[in-house]
């Protein structure tokens, strides 16, 4: 017997349609109010922040103008006409800048290592399912927030006073910020692990440290490394900024070139930095993907 769909008569359908329409109406109203509030808040924020749209439109050409100026040498010729060789060429400081970028990479690397160690040690206390005591959860989470909220440049300035000029303040500043960022990401990874091994180990009398080492760490390590490699890339950028406060690396040359309007130098240094980050990205991408797929199989 074939099933047939009986269509209710119009008068039976009517109240349902009315109910549907009223729900739709109220939903639409909620959306409208939401959009209106968002628009209002945006306008308010713009007003309080003195964002002047008219000025923005009339001046947007200036932005392109600056970018355009980056591609001309001091003698007015396009950078392409004299790429390398001689005092006035685009990449006159190629090897000097490479050396400085090398310094920046070392700062970023050491900062990332410090941050990994800090984040790794703290994340188990900051994971709701693993923390030994609720107060430890609270304290470590607030500490990690502190680490990543205070801008790196502020830490760097403080450390310059304490440790003097040079790469150490930059490394420490990046290390602290990375601790905060990785600690948070790591603890979220740790909160998503399978708890059976943890409970198993705990029930056989393993201490908290042993439980973490043998039940939790094997589950999270590949993800941790993956996040750390990503963080390294971000830290290269941060380390480049560190030069601004006398913490070594390419940053000081970059900021001097910007401030003295050596336009072609700015574009040359930025290009070298971008290429460096691309190389790092390509090198770490493969590792990260193999780690993540490894995680998927486990």
């Amino acid at each position, binding site marked *: 017997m074939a099933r047939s769909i009986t269509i209710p008569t119009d008068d039976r359908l009517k109240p349902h349609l009315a109910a549907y329409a009223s729900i739709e109406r109220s939903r639409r109203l909620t959306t409208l109010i939401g959009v209106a509030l968002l628009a209002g808040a945006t306008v308010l924020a713009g007003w309080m922040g003195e964002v002047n749209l008219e000025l923005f439109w009339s*001046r947007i050409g*200036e932005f392109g103008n600056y970018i355009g100026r980056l591609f001309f040498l*001091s003698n007015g010729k396009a950078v392409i006409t004299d790429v390398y060789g001689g*005092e006035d060429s685009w990449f*006159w*400081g*190629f*090897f*000097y800048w490479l050396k400085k970028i090398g310094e920046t990479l070392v700062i970023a690397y050491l900062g990332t290592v410090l941050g990994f160690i800090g984040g790794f040690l703290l994340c188990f206390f900051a994971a709701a399912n693993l923390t030994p005591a609720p107060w430890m959860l609270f304290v470590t989470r607030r500490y990690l927030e502190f680490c990543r909220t205070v801008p790196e440049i502020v830490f760097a300035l403080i450390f*310059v*006073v304490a440790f*003097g*000029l*040079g790469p150490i303040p930059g490394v420490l500043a990046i290390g602290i910020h990375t601790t905060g960022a990785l600690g948070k990401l790591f603890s979220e990874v740790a909160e998503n692990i399978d708890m059976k091994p943890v409970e198993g180990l705990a029930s056989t009398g393993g201490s908290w440290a042993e439980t973490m080492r043998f039940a939790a760490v094997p589950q999270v390590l590949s993800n941790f490394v993956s996040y750390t490699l990503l963080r390294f890339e971000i830290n290269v950028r941060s380390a480049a900024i560190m030069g601004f*406060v*006398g913490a070594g690396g390419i940053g*000081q040359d970059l*900021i*001097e070139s*910007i*401030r*003295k*309007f*050596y336009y072609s130098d700015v574009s040359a240094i930025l290009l070298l930095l971008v290429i460096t980050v691309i190389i790092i990205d390509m090198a770490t991408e493969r590792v990260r993907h193999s780690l993540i797929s490894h995680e998927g199989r486990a």
Partner: protein
Amino acid sequence: MSITRRSLAGLAAVLAVAAAGSAQAQDWKSKYKELVLAAVPDENASGMTERYAGFVAYLSKQLGVPVKLRVANDYAAVIEGQKAGNIHIAQYGPASYARAFMIGAKIEPFGMQVNADGGKGYHAVLYVKAGAPYKKVEDLKGKNLCLVDPNSTSGNNVPRFAMDKMGIDPEKFFGKVVYAGSHENAVIAVAQGTCDAAWNWWNDADESNLKRMERKKMEVAGKPIMYSDFDIVFTSDKIVNSPIAYLSDLPADLKKAISDACFNIGTNDPEAFKKLTDGKAQPWVPTSHKEYQPIVELNEFVDKLKKKKS
């Protein structure tokens, strides 16, 4: 009859001229509803705001339009702002004015600062802590040096020129060479030991950035900054005093109103001027680009020095 007609015509002409005059004044007031003043950051932001508050109020009153102070956090921001036409009036140092000129900003220097004794020059000096074992620049080998800002005359360009004459390449000779950001920061860096020596501006024993810091009772780690806590190990040749400039394409009567206000501030509003200069200067006097051409050449020389590093 004819006399009446002539006088009527004359009256009409007078009225027309008056109308044109006021229309012109109205013209720039409708185009420039607000003027922006900026100054290169000699000191920290709150110090700048305090120092310039009276001057800005005075300018607003004299010009009849609100004048707003924008506190820039580096010299380049003032230069870029004038090049873009966002900053109408700017108090420069000689080298930052020259840099703005070199990158094609359409500006005219109209006033030059004058020292209390009527002098129109100042010096770059190298400070070390009093009692430190450094008596001359050569003693500072391997130590840390604080410059001010890449666009500072007495805090970068004149020092680099002077050190080059001594045969010193700062980046090789010193341990670290950093830009402290402002004249005050450079002094603070020496006080707290971050740098062993710092370049700064200095008019005479009575007026300098360091003297100003002492007068403001600034402290480092709870200890007040005292002029006597520092020794000067090098004093440069005289540098031409700093210019104040406006945009070239401002209307002529607005330019005149601005320069008149600056030149006559001493009699019009001595209080505001005293606040601006701690009473250690006379009002600006007229100047022109010609006076700063040597500084343009100095900038070009220092630009070339940089490339020797490669």
